[in-house]
């Protein structure tokens, strides 16, 4: 209830969610139920990385990752446990799942059927947006063409069978997190939507007259940064451009179908490690940006937590974010008015400017063959890397203020972080062991023949082009596991490695600091007899590539030779590459929390290969306690988000390589 009961105009509050899940289905279920009890109105499921990339919890690549950044879901029992006592006919569930979206939706549907809820009663969203996985998020598995086919399978299936489901959530959110400007965020998201819609339109099983309904089911997931006025205008511009596309490209005129429906998670990239309490204010302002304009108001909102750059949020941290939303929705008078910007020339002009630039950029991508081509030829990825370079450079040079980071840095001791690593959630290592035990028990309890037959059914679909959903739902009931399902697809479709975009990315502008390091690199080259060569490696399932990309580009720009082969390599591959390439230093970037296992693995292998004297440095989200342990294990230097000055890091690199050469 709003504070002013006289108002009839009052808008309904947006859906209030928190992105969460960790350890196990059981632990996450408890978390969800307590969140719902404290006034959250929908669920947003975070899966762990093995689930997102199609591995069972007992797979070698899953080691150290199970239950870390989300909930592990291997089979129907896990899914049923996750929603235990949560009636799925009344819940609205958003699932951040992409490469394996069809499978997790199949498990969800099967779990609902177990509850006695039929598919047509289900409400919610599968993110199911593969293009932005290649560009930013990194949990892709299969090649683009095969992936788009599955996306469109899910769209075609849900439009017919789960009509209240949002089969795909086109995400511009992750693009901004990878450095996108507002114009890029708008244009690339629209190009992405066009790729999906074109694929659906081309299907035989989607009659022309349902295209309007398909269009109407497509929703978006946006970001909202700290320049919140501009962000308001971005949302307005996207609303306009979406309508334009619907009318002009797809011939839709039903206004209800043309509505731009979107949810938001506000920006996390700009949340700082230094003076982390300042993030509370950033988050609130960003939330304001996407709720301020009634005509372009978000339909659902997720807020990160103040300790975002430190590690995973604890329940209390998430509660504070939830309360922030509730204050905005229920305490302020925000929802009582029609659109505040009606008639505002300033907002109109800014919106128009974004719109026209975005149209141009969209056209460019469409002309090169659309979003899939612009993934494969690295156009979009490179553009993001370049934008991110500019962003980081502006912060480094003080041209873009970040309070507490490059301005007003002095601070009193914060009571919030006084207890060190106790200010974040630590997932118990026993979570992985217990999950694996449950998985093994599940496998031995199921009827193997049935599971095998169901899996064959999935494979047949892949080959003969039938929609993958019905066979997947049967497989879910038959006890097939996430890894088995994905392995079948890997076998048929093959695996894909997306371009990294760094190869010919324009780099940093010349600056005094950079020049100085470059001179030192030249001198070091004389000593070494060749240019210093660095391997930037991303071990494990972690897809956070920003840091690795920016380090790679910067190292090139100060004159080093850089080997960077993208995300998701095994420690073994990294060590082989370090040896074959003859590098002077190995730099590992890990943000997903699995650093302790992975870094040690790399160190051990290096020693075994006789490369123990090659210095290893590590960057990412590394809590202090872990950093101390890694240093003791032999890591030369450790960097975290507060080390935002890349030029300084490069200077260190010169020192480290120089020392090792002596």
């Amino acid at each position: 209830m709003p504070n002013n009961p006289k108002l009839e105009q009052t808008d309904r509050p947006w859906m209030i969610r928190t992105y969460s899940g960790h350890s196990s289905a059981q632990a996450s279920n408890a978390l969800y139920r307590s969140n719902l009890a404290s006034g959250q109105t929908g669920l947003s499921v975070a899966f762990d990385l093995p689930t997102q990339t199609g591995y069972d919890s007992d797979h070698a690549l899953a080691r150290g990752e199970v239950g870390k950044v989300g909930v592990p879901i291997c089979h129907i029992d896990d899914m049923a446990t996750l929603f235990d006592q949560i009636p799925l006919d009344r819940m609205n569930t958003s699932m951040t799942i992409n490469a394996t979206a069809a499978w997790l939706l199949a498990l969800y549907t099967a779990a609902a059927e177990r509850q006695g809820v039929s598919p047509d009663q289900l409400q919610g969203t599968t993110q199911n947006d593969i293009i932005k996985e290649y560009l930013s998020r990194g949990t892709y598995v299969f090649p683009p063409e095969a992936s788009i086919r599955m996306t469109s399978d899910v769209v075609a299936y849900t439009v017919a069978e789960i009509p209240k489901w949002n089969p795909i959530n086109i995400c511009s959110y992750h693009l901004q997190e990878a450095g996108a400007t507002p114009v890029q965020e708008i244009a690339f998201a629209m190009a992405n939507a066009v790729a999906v819609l074109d694929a659906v339109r081309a299907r035989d099983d989607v009659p022309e007259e349902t295209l309007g309904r398909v269009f109407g089911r497509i929703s978006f997931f946006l970001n909202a940064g700290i320049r919140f006025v501009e962000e308001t205008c971005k949302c307005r511009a996207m609303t306009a451009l979406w309508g334009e596309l619907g009318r002009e490209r797809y011939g839709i005129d039903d206004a209800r179908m043309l509505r731009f429906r979107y949810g938001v998670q506000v920006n996390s990239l700009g949340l700082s490690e230094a003076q982390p309490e300042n993030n509370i204010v950033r988050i609130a302002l960003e939330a304001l940006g996407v709720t301020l304009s009634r005509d372009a108001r978000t339909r659902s909102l997720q807020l990160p937590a103040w300790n975002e750059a430190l590690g995973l949020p604890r329940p209390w941290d998430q509660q504070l974010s939830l309360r922030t939303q509730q204050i905005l929705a229920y305490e302020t008078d925000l929802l009582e008015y029609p659109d505040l910007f009606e008639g505002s020339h300033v907002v109109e002009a800014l919106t128009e400017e974004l719109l026209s630039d975005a149209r141009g950029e969209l056209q460019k991508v469409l002309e090169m063959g659309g979003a899939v081509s612009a993934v494969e030829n690295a156009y979009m990825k490179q553009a993001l890397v370049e934008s991110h370079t500019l962003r980081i450079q502006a912060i480094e040079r003080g041209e873009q203020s970040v309070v507490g980071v490059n301005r007003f840095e002095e601070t009193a001791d914060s009571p919030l972080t006084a207890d060190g690593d106790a200010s974040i959630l630590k997932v118990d290592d026993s979570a992985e062991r217990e999950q694996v035990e449950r998985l093994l028990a599940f496998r031995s309890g199921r009827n193997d023949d049935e599971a095998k037959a169901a899996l064959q059914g999935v494979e047949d679909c892949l080959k003969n082009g039938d929609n993958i959903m019905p066979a997947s739902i049967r497989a879910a009931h038959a006890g097939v596991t996430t890894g088995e399902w994905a392995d079948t697809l890997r076998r048929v479709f093959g695996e894909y490695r997306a371009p990294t975009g760094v190869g010919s990315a324009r780099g940093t502008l010349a600056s005094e600091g950079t020049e100085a390091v470059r001179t030192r690199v030249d001198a070091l080259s004389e000593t070494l007899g060749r240019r210093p060569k660095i391997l930037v490696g991303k071990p494990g399932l972690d897809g956070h590539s920003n840091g690795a990309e920016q380090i790679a580009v910067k190292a090139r720009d100060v004159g080093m030779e850089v080997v960077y082969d993208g995300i998701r390599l095994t420690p073994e591959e990294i060590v082989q590459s370090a040896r074959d390439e003859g590098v002077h230093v190995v730099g590992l970037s890990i943000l997903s929390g699995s650093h302790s296992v992975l870094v040690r693995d790399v160190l051990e292998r290096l020693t075994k290969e006789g490369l123990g004297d090659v210095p290893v440095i590590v960057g990412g989200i590394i809590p202090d306690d872990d950093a101390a342990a890694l240093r003791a294990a032999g890591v030369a230097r450790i960097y975290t988000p507060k080390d935002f000055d890349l030029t300084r890091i490069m200077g260190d690199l010169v020192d480290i390589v120089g020392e090792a050469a002596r």
Partner: protein
Amino acid sequence: MSGHGSGRVERLLEGLAAGDRTAISEALNLVDDRRSEQRQAALELLDGLATRPLPHAPYRVGITGAPGAGKSSLLNALVEKLRASDAGIGIIAVDPSSQRSGGALLGDRMRLSGGARESGVFLRSMAARDRLGGLADATQAGATVLSSVFEWVFIETVGIGQSECEVAQLVDTLVFVAQPGAGDTLQFMKAGILELPDIFVVNKADTGPAAERTRGELESTLGLTASPEPGDWRPPVLLASAQDRQGIDTLLDALAEHRDQGLKSGRLEARRQSGEQAFAVDSLARRYGEYGLERIGGAQAVAQRLAAPGPRSIFAVVLELGREIERAVKPG
């Protein structure tokens, strides 16, 4: 052989003979090293490799073409096939250096799929450095090192005109990868290097009829320029799809045919020799400059001495010529 690093050189030679990967890597570092005593040691190493019998007959293949044509993908497909027969494979991948900083971003090229990445294919990337043509300084020497261990040595280099000439000098067969679309052929003609490749492949045949068209265009252009003597090699223009693994066997057949024909006709041997000579002259010129070469009679004379048949390897001759130059320029 006597010299500075001979202990190390002996050790590396042994390691290479045993196929030890750490030794391969160290040898590649050595031939890439500009410091003078290291250069000396590198030449000793190369001489050692050149004068000892190999247990296998190495074959070097250059793969060139515009960025994005699918060179790496095609290479990956070839590697997959070759690995099935357990062949040893070494790869040198050359990427351009930044003009401004001298730095380079390597990688983002090996689309080696899981199997090939794990199977022990040796990959070294190199930056093109100050060579305009786009080939790394150490490519020739690196290829010699890899050839001593592996049957197959591939050199991937971005085609930017000049580099075709350079890579042609150091491989037995040069493959040019084109992608569908007229642009490529035109570019290629403009660059005026249509004569160099031994095999043309139009990749991405899966994308539709444009590939077949491009092949037709290339064929007719080639027909106009090249009127081969009987018995001469006539470069085929093949269609392939690295993505769908189509045309890979045909490409392998064409490689085998070119190699066999070259061996029979003696062309292969001649090509290797002239490649090494070019490397030698180049290496001396880079180290001592025009002025240095003049001290011992100029580039022409140097080339002649390199070409004179003798029991020693060309690398030993380079070492000796270097010493001569040093004596000649040193006062007193």
